[in-house]
């Protein structure tokens, strides 16, 4: 679903990472939920730095904690969740802020685009009401001002006939249109930071690229920081400046997109890349799946959490947990592995990396 025409070198601007202030500083964030079965440790010791105008892609399979991470940063948690660590947003510590204080951030400073536009829009309210309510809440606009702003927002997310759409209910629109509405709602108050939680997973393949391009364009125009959560490396390829790969609640590999695709270091990232179908494959080629399943987050194994599924695992991996450490050759490339994928193997993989601009659908 990567845009075939996009030249990745153009999209991932090799900008100096120092450009733009640090907007989000997450340090050792852990999130757990109490459940009947015990404590579910959904996110463990995640640290992230994000500057304005930059996009971080968070990649992992279902249950890797990537969506929980986004919600933990934003503070949209159910009552049975516990978070530890630190989340600084614009220099303010917000991890333990009461919900009432968080409401000043939600919608106004940070906003979220949810996965499924079929269920995330209120079925009984008109689109206009759903867009304008945060305008009234945060910006104190009059009815007419809010209406005009809503019209402008719909235009900016590429919705034709915005005046007519405003009067419609969500069920009267297509999935792609609804996702555009959701993006318009998220952007209503001009947030500095946008969380996109699998924004295209529920959409038709043909619409996915459009929505991703739209998000990218809006992010660039508005100089927002964006966290793009996805299970699909193809989605972040060419769209994210930095990539964090998550497994069992931890970041296992973190680097700039270029560095990551140039030299994959973690066996899990490698396995993810191998599982993507490629155009030059013969028809009916079996895709490489990752054997086994992710560990139970209630009862995590000792040692490396990926060891059970890792083709390179050795005894040490099952006894001792590796730390997220800088790669000896590139200090900005972090890997949580005792035996990172060799450079030679990585070079071979590089040919298959999605940055090469292949169709990944």
């Amino acid at each position, binding site marked *: 679903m990567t845009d075939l025409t996009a030249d990745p070198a153009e999209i991932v601007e090799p900008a100096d990472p120092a450009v733009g202030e640090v907007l989000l500083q997450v340090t050792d964030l852990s999130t757990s939920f109490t459940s009947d079965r015990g404590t579910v440790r959904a996110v463990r010791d995640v640290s992230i730095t994000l500057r304005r105008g930059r996009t971080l892609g968070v990649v992992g399979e279902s249950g890797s904690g990537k969506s929980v991470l986004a919600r933990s940063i934003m503070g949209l948690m159910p009552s049975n969740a516990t978070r530890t660590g630190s989340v600084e947003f614009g220099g303010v510590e917000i991890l333990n802020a009461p919900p009432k204080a968080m409401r000043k951030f939600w919608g106004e400073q940070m*906003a979220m685009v*949810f*996965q499924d536009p079929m269920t*995330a829009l*209120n079925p*009984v*309210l008109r689109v206009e009401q759903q867009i304008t309510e945060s305008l009234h809440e945060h910006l104190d606009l009059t009815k007419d001002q809010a209406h005009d702003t809503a019209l402008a927002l719909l235009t900016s997310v590429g919705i034709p006939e915005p005046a007519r759409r405003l009067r419609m209910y969500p*069920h009267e629109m297509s999935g792609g249109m609804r996702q555009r509405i959701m993006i318009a*709602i998220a952007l209503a108050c001009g947030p500095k930071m946008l969380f996109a939680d699998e924004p295209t997973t529920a959409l038709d393949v043909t619409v996915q690229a459009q929505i991703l391009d739209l998000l990218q364009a809006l992010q660039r125009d508005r100089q927002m920081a964006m966290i793009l959560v996805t299970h699909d490396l193809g989605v972040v390829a060419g769209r994210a400046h930095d990539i964090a790969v998550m497994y069992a609640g931890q970041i296992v590999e973190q680097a700039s997109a270029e560095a990551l695709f140039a030299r994959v270091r973690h066996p899990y990232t490698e396995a993810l890349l191998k599982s993507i179908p490629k155009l030059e494959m013969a028809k009916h080629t079996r895709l490489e799946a990752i054997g086994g399943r992710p560990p139970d987050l209630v009862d995590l194994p000792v040692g490396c959490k990926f060891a059970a599924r890792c083709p390179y695992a050795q005894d040490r991996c099952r006894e001792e947990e590796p730390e997220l450490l800088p790669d000896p050759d590139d200090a900005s490339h972090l890997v949580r592995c005792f035996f990172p994928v060799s450079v030679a193997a990585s070079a071979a993989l590089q040919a298959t990396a999605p940055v090469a601009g292949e169709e990944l659908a």
Partner: protein
Amino acid sequence: MRVIGRRIIQLVVVFVVVTFFTVLLISLVPGKPEIVVIPFDNPQHTQRAAFRKENNLDRPLVIQWEKWAGKFVKGDFGNYYQSTGTDPVAKRIKSSAPVSALLILYTQVFSLAVAIPVAIWAAYKSGSRLDKLLNATAFAFISLPAFAVALILGYFLGVKYNLLPTSGYVRITDNPVEHFKTMVIPVLSLSLGQIAVYMRLLRSDLVSTLQEDFILMAKAKGISNRRVLWRHALRPSSLTLLTVAGLSIGTLIGGTLVVEVLLGIPGMGYLIGQAVLARQYVALQSSVALIAIVFVLLNFLIDYLYTVLDPRIRERT
């Protein structure tokens, strides 16, 4: 338009079925109906003979029904026979029906006005001690029959502390203050059970609505909890409540019967109660038919309200 046409057909079917059985009622009376309905007649039995002719009791059942229905739709509801004289049932219904209608209206409005905020509160705090307490209280209320509540309230509010009249009725046009005072005990008696049912229903629907993505989305907009609950959660959760509120008008009609007799309120329940005791089958027949029609009409209104509450239903009908 097609919907309205379908509704009218439904209404006719309900009317035919209900009234046919009420007409049958007279024929099922043990002994001769005219003797049961008119126990004291003049020596010539002219009243009884007139009654037989009036209700076409010598003709086939279908003709009886047809003649009765023909008069009914014209507003002739038959006669109420008493030793003191005969008067039209329509006259009695005309004075009783508004009393019961008001009683049921007040009960519904009061029940919903209490149940909705309490349910929202309980759902918001779902799983908490408060929620459990509210649920247990509701359960106790459901278990209390209306007449028991009427007696208890009558004893405390009426007799012991002498705050309210324990029986009788004052029309709103005569004295509004007294009118509402006489309505307090009956409305409370009928409401407790309704509040409990409505509250438990709405609470459980709300709890599941609050799990929906669009609620999280609404929260993520930074709007207040109050707004999330009342504006985003309540409407999509209220369809079951609406259905049950409509159906419980039937329960309430039954409830008013007991409560009206107990508290001396001259409504439809009181009228029907008297008609049963005096074996006034004609009056009974007309009252029951009228109530059935009103009940069906109200539920048509409820069906329409669905489409107001949920735009997705509008498409389908």
